[in-house]
């Protein structure tokens, strides 16, 4: 069922990314952004496998980012890793709280409920000036990493290594989850919730667990992005950002955990190419890409599953053949 991903190919990609980040300092930020967007899109992929799309998930990146910023400001000298962990914990907690009620909704209601929540959070982040620094965001001192205080270039390289290790490790773990019992029940939520209930399984509780995982993944992305920029802004939770995560998840496909990262790589390359050659037209490029994906690869880069395409209903010929 699982498409095996060659470890050699992954190792090569990792080396390539490390070499690029080491050789060209300018490439570090785009690479870190790509890895973080990949992690966030992986969170959306978790939900898409259950047939659900959230148009507000960037709110967890904001929760992760603000919690990281609060931790650094509240505890001067705190390690960057500990601050990021605080961000992830905060997003997991927020995710659990929201999961308790959004897990009852499906489809457009699920998507819009998330969007609504993210809009509320976005305006709060912009208006509660005393806590969040308002629309300019919250700036903080660059924390040490593993006890080592670093210069900007060094810090970015270290963050790149951190984001890369986390991305590889987490993608592997999330893929295990996809293949696990709970992960397969998520797939079944997409096709037949009635039957799940009739075999004694609770779609709602399995979806709620998946939702918490997805919030944690987006929260980790938000924490890392805040850390590397020493800044968190309300924009990190804006609905356009949520839309970008959805875009990447669709682009990559939900057949395998690696899809989110392939989608993020393409997304980041489009942005880089657009910045270099079509400064005013990058949305056109993104839009055209999405149209092309939906027309020619509706299951994304990794495909839904590397198996013969299936008809939705048994064909009349097959019915007669029985």
């Amino acid at each position: 069922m699982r498409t095996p991903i060659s470890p050699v190919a992954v190792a090569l990609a990792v080396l390539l990314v490390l070499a690029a980040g080491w050789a060209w300092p300018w490439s570090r930020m785009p690479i870190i952004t790509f890895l973080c967007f990949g992690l966030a899109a992986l969170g959306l992929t978790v939900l898409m496998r259950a047939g659900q799309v959230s148009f507000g998930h960037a709110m967890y990146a904001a929760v992760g980012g603000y919690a990281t910023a609060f931790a650094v400001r509240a505890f001067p000298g705190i390690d960057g890793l500990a601050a990021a962990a605080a961000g992830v914990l905060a997003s997991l907690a927020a995710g659990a709280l929201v999961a308790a009620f959004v897990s009852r909704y499906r489809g457009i209601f699920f998507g819009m409920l998330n969007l609504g929540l993210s809009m509320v959070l976005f305006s709060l982040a912009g208006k509660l000036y005393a806590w969040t620094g308002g629309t300019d965001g919250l700036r903080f001192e660059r924390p040490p990493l593993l006890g080592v205080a670093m210069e900007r270039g060094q810090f970015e390289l270290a963050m790149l290594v951190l984001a890369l290790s986390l991305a590889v490790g987490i993608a592997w773990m999330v893929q295990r989850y996809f293949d696990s019992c709970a992960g397969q029940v998520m797939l079944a939520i997409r096709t037949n919730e009635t039957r799940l209930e009739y075999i004694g399984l609770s779609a709602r509780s399995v979806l709620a667990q998946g939702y918490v995982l997805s919030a944690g993944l987006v929260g980790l992305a938000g924490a890392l992005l805040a850390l590397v920029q020493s800044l968190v802004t309300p924009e990190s939770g804006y609905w356009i950002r949520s839309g970008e995560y959805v875009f990447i998840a669709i682009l990559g496909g939900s057949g395998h955990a690696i899809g989110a990262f392939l989608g993020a790589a393409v997304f980041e390359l489009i942005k880089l190419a657009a910045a270099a050659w079509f400064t005013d037209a990058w949305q056109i490029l993104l839009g055209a890409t999405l149209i092309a994906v939906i027309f020619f690869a509706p299951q994304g880069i990794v495909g839904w599953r590397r198996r013969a395409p299936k008809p939705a209903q048994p064909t009349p010929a097959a019915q007669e053949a029985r």
Partner: protein
Amino acid sequence: MSAPATHELLRTEGLTLRFGGIAAADGIDFTLARGEHLAVIGANGAGKTTFINICTGYIRPSSGRVLFEGVDITRKGPRQIARLGVGRSFQLPQLFLDHTVRQCLELASVSRQGRLSRWTSLSRAADQRAVAEMLELVELAAHADDLTAVLPEGRRKLLDVGIALMLEPKLVIMDEPTSGVSSEDKHGVMQTLMRALQQRRVTSWFVEHDVEIVRRYATRVAAWIDGRVAADGAPAQVFADPLVRREVLGER
């Protein structure tokens, strides 16, 4: 009603469900004993599926009670009732369309075990011996790795019941197990199903329109008319009932 308490498996008392002025279930008092194979017959709209839906927790009745093994299940949902030992198949088989035949049974198997690992793969966590036995029992071994979405209708019916049987139920309710199956295959499908149910010593209750099949496989027949049990007893007796002959079988 007539069955002794020890043999009673399911009982309903005054089960009523009204949609506006129409009673889909009109004060049904009904008892099913262990080991019975009950066929429910009746015209479309007589309330056969509604009765199943109420007894499996999909719909709440307006009034009345459902007791399974003496436990009141009226307010329980499909999930809890399934766990108590009532399996169900559907007129349109309810399968997991992104999964293979084997995976559908594996999902039921891990549900039976009562824990859903977030780490161990489905195929490893499932009881593979139970899955293999079920594949044999419902004659789907040759289709084990086919996606359910491409299965022919007869096989879908068999899998639908196979999934229910994986939970080791005491009762399986089948809603029109042979509808949508070609006439030459109906008997084969029904024979496989009934053999599986008998081998697992499962009590069954099935809705069926084909008189031939009812005569052959049912130990008892209940005829539904307008949300009520109009006749109930041995097949020969029920089919001889003038009301059943007129209202259900459509004879003049």
